């Protein structure tokens, strides 16, 4: 294949040389009719070719043209003009178009442009400036709230992954992330975090590969939402496509410099607040007379002394009393000023909030472009240094963008680009519930903490010694000062850090040949390839087994495309656009994971040879996938009034069994621009209805067809092997999605007010699922084509310009998305027995995320209260709530709706904009509250009860409380329960349901104030064409939320498992100062 493509290119090149003709240069100026001012950015092209240029700031252009050509001048909002060349200068006056909206060119699938008139599906475009304005290192985050139908969930940890889902989750266990395509090159965005990390165990979130994309190189982003819009991409388009158009060189040399500095800080409303009344312990059962302290002779005076129960990672101990002197952890640290001293029993001055730092990050980029008649050139470099809010966490990025086009003849142009990304992470935050590894210090701070521990003292202890001096000694009285469950958090950050490095290339070479005015043939080979090394370490003296691991990963995706495009006026009224193409995609994913065994011999040496025991053989993976596709499409338009569109693609995938590996994706679409018939109503600027239907399919995960065994490290010299726990299926068929959509586009009052609305319904069936089976079968999962998920929803976007004057402009955009999903079918066995629930993952705390029959996708299940017929909670004879079995639906992780309101104001050189991002409804389970309320960290566990006494007093001392509810006979509960030992408010006594919170939020996501120097001043600055200062805020304010002490948006990783928090990171507020210079 590669060979044949090369041959094609060679022949195209040869053919082109014959087509050279005599050229001369035309210069001119383009002005607008209404005000006579020059119009910059007008596209000037030789009609029927790709050759062209754009006007500069002063509306001027210069272009080398053959004799007897016609030049076409087009610009958004103006009527396109075709002017025959006569002489060497020409001045053109553009007239504003009353139909401007319909003429807006929108990039569609495979990069094929259509005017809005011709486009019969939902697509929303966001400019690069808009996406990039907050200077976030991941451009995806800049889309939140800006596109109807797009749900973005960002995790708060530095460099963590972003979940990007269009129109709801369709595939129960498959990938639901939108496909990213840069200039026709599909970009891998699969999350390659470990399965343990993704399922809530410990690990690191290595981020979404889409965050590599350089925000400064984005010209615009188009979001293709439905299957009809993206059917030409085949299986990968089934989740929608985010098309990124990179910056193109404009005529003449242009240099743009962006320089920004950001400062971050923790949004305290998203972190724990602590009670200040009770210290370390789980209750009163230690050995001093009060039962709250360890008891032994520390100072050698023959009398027993009070010692903090250092093993007890909870704050359910003795009431604070400054007159009580206790030997605390630092009394056992020989390097501490408090060594050997009993200190007052009080709450720490510096709680874990002081663990966070205020990171300074900076981003510098330069982009040099040049456009000439012969082609264009682009070279950019970006350096981004980002630091996190926890100590020793940083990500450094170096990005080089290089691209060029060369017009060999007026009919043939070639181009290529290489983007190089070098990403280096150090100390990414640990995530999940990590057990013995304790990499996520947030689980420590939010769930298992003693509020008498001073974080700054722990920092000082680490700084003094570099050793793991912890508050959590295993047995201080016996001299055992090793940590039992928790390391010093600074030791975790500075000794047990991960590091990772990724070198990635995304590039393509392409040729476009236009033998006749109505035909364009494009050939392209593109590559997205990276190698990555993730290293993790745990030093000697940490909790758990020290280790060093390295995961060498590599990925490449190569695409070969050949595409013929026809654009022909069949008659005066009919225009036909047609295409025929082929695409071959090859993926190669490999990894080698090695880890030491049983510990490290020498501390701080991180190499496999430093393994205490002989390491097991590395775990290797090699996965190949190839999908071969052919496709065709046609768009027929009649007088700008009616558009009919049809596409078909056939894919053949290597991951399906031979008999079922070929499948088709048809789509049909139609649009009717009814405003054409209502021209008498001048207030109606534009009106179109559109409808479409498409079927798309998806192939299977690699290696889900044939069964294999796994090889287990040998037992001594005896080899070991096991049957895999998932049964593969040699009869898999492709997964299918049917999708239908209707839409309405309206524009009023000369486009001062616009509306775009869509209603869609999708049904994804024959889903390729590893279904849960009874493990009595010998397997946990079995691959089947089973399950149907239906999604339907509404997307609305409204934009208006309430005020538009010469100097002052106010623009407003509103986006609204509402999606409803329902799992309508799971699977049936041969006897007709139907599965009612598919558990997707179960987490710490006994909760799980599920696809439950006849419920929305992503139900949170766990234990619930038992309820009386009037809805009141039932309390048992012991005063505690009765609990249901472990499988009740206790929450739905999907929001009711999401939306964004964007306002922007410009006044002369100033602009101000802000985006409010809203999510209404949806649930999240908080493991942090589940444990943290049990261990008595939060103020909710300390209050004065109805008897006027501290609730933590024993029942005998008037403590305790009465759980609101009724007895089984319906009488109000009157039994007082104790809150004097841990658990009363947390997991031990309450069902999971008690820790399910509403995940709604209203956030001031972005705010920006900018100032551009006026043209008058600029003209005195020599070569400088633009100077802009911006002050940018991101995640400034959570205006409203219902989840205490955390950000409801936070999750563990991108993917289908949402609605669960554990060891959540707080939100980082960032304020950036940006300077943009353009030469």
């Amino acid at each position, binding site marked *: 294949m590669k060979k044949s493509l090369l*041959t094609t290119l060679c022949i195209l090149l040869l053919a082109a040389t014959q087509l050279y003709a005599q050229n001369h240069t035309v210069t001119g100026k383009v002005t607008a009719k209404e005000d006579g001012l020059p119009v910059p950015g007008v596209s000037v092209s030789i009609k029927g070719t790709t050759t062209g240029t754009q006007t500069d700031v002063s509306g001027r252009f210069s272009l080398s043209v053959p004799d007897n050509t016609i030049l076409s001048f087009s610009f958004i909002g103006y009527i396109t003009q075709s002017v025959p060349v006569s002489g060497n200068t020409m001045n053109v006056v553009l007239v504003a178009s009353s139909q401007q909206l319909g003429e807006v060119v929108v990039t569609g699938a495979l990069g094929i442009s259509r005017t809005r008139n011709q486009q019969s599906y939902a697509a929303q475009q966001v400019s690069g400036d808009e996406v990039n304005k907050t200077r976030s290192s991941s451009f995806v985050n800049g889309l939140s709230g800006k596109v109807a139908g797009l749900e973005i969930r960002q995790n708060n940890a530095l460099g963590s992954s972003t979940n990007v889902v269009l129109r709801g989750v369709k595939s129960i266990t498959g990938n639901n992330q939108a496909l990213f395509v840069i200039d026709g090159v599909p970009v891998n965005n699969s999350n390659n975090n470990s399965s343990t990390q993704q399922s809530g165990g410990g690990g690191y979130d290595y981020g979404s590969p889409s965050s590599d994309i350089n925000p400064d190189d984005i010209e615009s982003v188009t979001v293709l939402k439905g299957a009809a819009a993206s059917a030409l991409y085949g299986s990968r388009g089934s989740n929608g496509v985010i098309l990124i158009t990179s910056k193109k060189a404009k005529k003449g040399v242009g240099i743009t410099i962006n320089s920004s500095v950001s400062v971050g800080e923790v949004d305290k409303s998203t972190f724990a607040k602590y009670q200040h009344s009770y210290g370390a312990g789980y209750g009163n059962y230690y050995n001093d007379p009060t039962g709250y302290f360890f008891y032994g002779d520390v100072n050698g005076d023959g009398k027993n002394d009070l010692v903090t129960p250092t*093993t007890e990672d909870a704050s359910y101990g003795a009431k604070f009393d400054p007159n009580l002197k206790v030997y605390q952890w630092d009394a056992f640290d020989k390097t501490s000023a408090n060594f050997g001293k009993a200190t007052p029993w009080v709450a720490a001055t510096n709680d874990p909030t002081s663990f966070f730092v205020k990171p300074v990050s900076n981003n510098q980029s330069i982009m040099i472009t040049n456009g000439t008649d012969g082609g264009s050139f682009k070279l950019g470099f970006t350096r981004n240094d980002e630091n996190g809010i926890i100590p020793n966490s940083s990500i450094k990025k170096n990005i080089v963008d290089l691209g060029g086009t060369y017009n060999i003849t007026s009919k043939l142009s070639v181009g290529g680009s290489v983007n190089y990304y070098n990403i280096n992470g150090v100390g990414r935050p640990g995530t999940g519930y990590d057990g013995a590894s304790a990499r996520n210090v947030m689980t420590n701070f939010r769930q298992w903490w003693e509020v008498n521990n001073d974080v700054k003292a722990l920092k000082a202890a680490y700084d003094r010694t570099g050793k793991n001096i912890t508050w959590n000694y295993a047995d201080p009285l016996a001299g055992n000062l090793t940590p039992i469950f928790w390391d010093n958090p600074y030791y975790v950050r500075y000794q047990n850090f991960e590091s990772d490095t990724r070198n990635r290339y995304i590039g393509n070479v392409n040729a476009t040949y236009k033998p006749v005015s109505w035909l364009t043939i494009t050939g392209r080979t593109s590559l997205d390839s990276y190698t990555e090394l993730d290293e993790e370490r745990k030093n000697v003296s940490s909790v758990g087994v020290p280790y060093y691991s390295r995961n060498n990963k590599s990925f490449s995706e190569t695409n070969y495309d050949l595409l013929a495009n026809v654009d022909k006026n069949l008659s005066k009224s009919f225009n036909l656009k047609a295409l025929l193409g082929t695409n071959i995609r090859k993926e190669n994913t490999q990894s080698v994971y090695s880890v030491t*065994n049983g510990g490290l011999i020498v501390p701080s040496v991180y190499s496999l040879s430093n393994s205490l025991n002989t390491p097991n053989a590395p775990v290797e993976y090699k996965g190949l996938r190839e999908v*071969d596709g052919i496709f065709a499409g046609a768009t027929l338009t009649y007088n700008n009034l009616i558009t009919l569109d049809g596409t078909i693609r056939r894919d053949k995938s*290597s991951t399906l069994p031979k008999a079922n590996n070929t499948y088709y994706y048809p789509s049909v679409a139609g649009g009717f621009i009814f405003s054409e018939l209502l021209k008498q109503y001048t207030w109606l600027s534009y009106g179109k209805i559109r409808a479409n239907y498409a079927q798309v399919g998806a192939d299977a995960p690699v290696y889900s067809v044939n069964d294999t065994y796994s090889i287990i*490290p040998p037992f001594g010299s005896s080899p070991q*092997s096991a049957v895999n726990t998932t049964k593969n299926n040699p009869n898999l068929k492709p997964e299918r999605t049917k999708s239908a959509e209707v839409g309405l586009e309206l524009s009023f009052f000369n486009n001062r007010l616009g509306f775009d609305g869509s209603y869609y319904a999708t049904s994804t069936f024959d889903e390729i699922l590893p279904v849960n089976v*009874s493990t009595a079968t010998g397997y946990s999962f079995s691959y089947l084509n089973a399950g149907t998920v239906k999604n339907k929803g509404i997307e609305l976007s409204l934009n208006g310009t309430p005020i538009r004057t010469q100097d002052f402009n106010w623009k407003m955009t509103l986006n609204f998305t509402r999606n409803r999903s329902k799992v309508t079918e799971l699977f049936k066995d041969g006897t007709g027995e139907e599965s009612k629930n598919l558990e997707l993952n179960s987490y710490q705390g006994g909760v799980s995320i599920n696809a439950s029959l006849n419920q929305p996708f992503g139900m949170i299940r766990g234990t619930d209260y038992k309820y009386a017929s009037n809805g009141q909670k039932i309390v048992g004879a012991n005063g505690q709530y009765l609990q249901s079995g*472990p499988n009740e639906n206790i929450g739905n992780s999907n929001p009711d709706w999401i939306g964004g309101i964007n306002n922007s104001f410009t006044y002369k050189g100033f602009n101000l904009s802000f985006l409010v991002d809203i999510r209404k409804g949806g649930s999240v389970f908080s493991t942090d509250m589940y444990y943290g309320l049990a261990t008595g960290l939060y103020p909710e566990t300390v209050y004065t009860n109805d008897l006027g006494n501290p609730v933590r007093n024993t029942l005998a001392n008037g403590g305790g409380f009465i759980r609101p509810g009724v007895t089984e006979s319906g009488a109000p509960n009157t039994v007082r329960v104790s809150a004097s030992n841990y658990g009363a408010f947390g997991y031990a006594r309450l069902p999971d349901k008690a820790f399910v919170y509403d995940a709604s939020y209203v956030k001031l996501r972005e705010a920006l104030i900018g100032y551009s120097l006026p043209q008058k001043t600029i003209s005195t600055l020599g070569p400088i064409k633009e100077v802009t200062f911006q002050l940018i805020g991101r995640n400034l304010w959570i205006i409203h939320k219902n989840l205490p002490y955390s950000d409801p948006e936070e999750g563990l990783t991108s993917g289908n498992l949402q609605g669960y928090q554990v060891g959540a990171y707080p939100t980082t507020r960032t304020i950036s100062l940006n300077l943009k210079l353009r030469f």
Partner: protein
Amino acid sequence: MKKILGVFLLTSILFSACKKDLTSLNNDPKNPSIVPSYALFTNAQRRLSNTVTSSNVNLNIFRLIEQQWQETTYTDESNYDITTRSIPDGIWNALYRDVLYNFERTKVLIPNDVTGADIQKNEIAITDVMQVYTYYYLVTTFGDIPYTDALDISKPFPRFDDAKTVYYSLLTRLDADIAALNTGAASFGSADVIYGGDVTKWKKFAATLKLKMGITIADLDNAKAKTVVESAVATGVFTSNSDNAQFQYLTSPPNTNPVWVDLVQSARQDFVACSTTMALLKPQTAFADPRLPYYFTVNSTGTYIGADPGSSATFSLFSKPSGPLLVSSSIGKITNPDFPGLLLDYSETEFNLAEAISRGYAVAGSVAGHYNSAVTASVTYWGASATAAAAYLLQPTVAFVTATGGTDLHKIGLQKYLALYNRGWDAWTETRRLDYPVLTAPSTAQTEFPVRFTYPVNEQNVNVTNYNKAATAIGGDLVTTKLFFDKH
């Protein structure tokens, strides 16, 4: 011309894209589609030993239920919380999926790679005995379980079979296996970590397991139990500790004893001695059990002391499971990485023989004689001398005639309980069956003393109809529903 060329090229590429065979790309180059049968056998044997030996709170908490050990800070399992950590799922997955099914596949693959009909037959019979052994734990833990439909992926929702029917079928299988074992031929060799492929030992193992299974149903069906026991004894059961079925773990991970992983490697301090067992070992008295230093360490002040069941405890103040890696002076080995996993032993065999005679079965010897042999076997297995055992047996509360408990079965029950230290799962079955010693639920316990485990959450979710039928059939899916063999 150029147009034609373009069209030609395009079509040729389109066609080249259609003809290729892509299927071979989907063959995993890193994992085999076939493996040697013995590799599956070794792994399944290790997984089985791990499951019955483990002290992991997600899998095997029977030492806690049996009040041999006690948790320190996180006392949920000591208080019979088996749901938070989905322990029934853990057991079910380990035994069905990781053990039984891998043995099942071993049987399927043996004819592929083992030459010699006798060897094949021996290997299949040994594998089947291991399966019977595994099913014994499932059926005595849950009651009705999938059996006829089990280990068959074409039945993703297997029906549950009546527990007694399953049990009797297991006995029939054992008979067939005993008949099939040919002591004149070889078997797995070194792939068999327990007996190194010694078929004579396996035959004894099968008979000893049969004896145990016969005794287990004595209260359910005395006549059947008598037949089974007598025929097992006739085949030949364990006669010394050298017959014990032990899985010899290695010193380095990942093939160590799982108790070492949980108690030593993790450096956690989760478990200490429980006062119930400790009291029966009579520490700090002249009558201290000779096994005491092999069972437990001393605490930080040098004394033997157990924490009360269900209550929180400070690690340093109590005795811990024995081993120099936890307390350097300890002479026991429970927490050593290479401490063997014990699957079936001579001591319990002698207790079973004592019980058989007490129940009037035709077995040679006397109740007291077998009782004495059982206690002696246990004491010497753990490391104390035969002299110490003899002295111990002279103590009035131990000597059979005057032993604590009153009835034969209670006397046997108490000593068997002590001998089954560190084998909580078996101790649990015997406690339920012999009802002695009486274990009192902690006041903080979530339920009464569990006499069975509830079905796994996954079965409840996935296998709904059959689960519901089974729950009804056994009288409710509760930890308090008595199982078929537990008649008192």
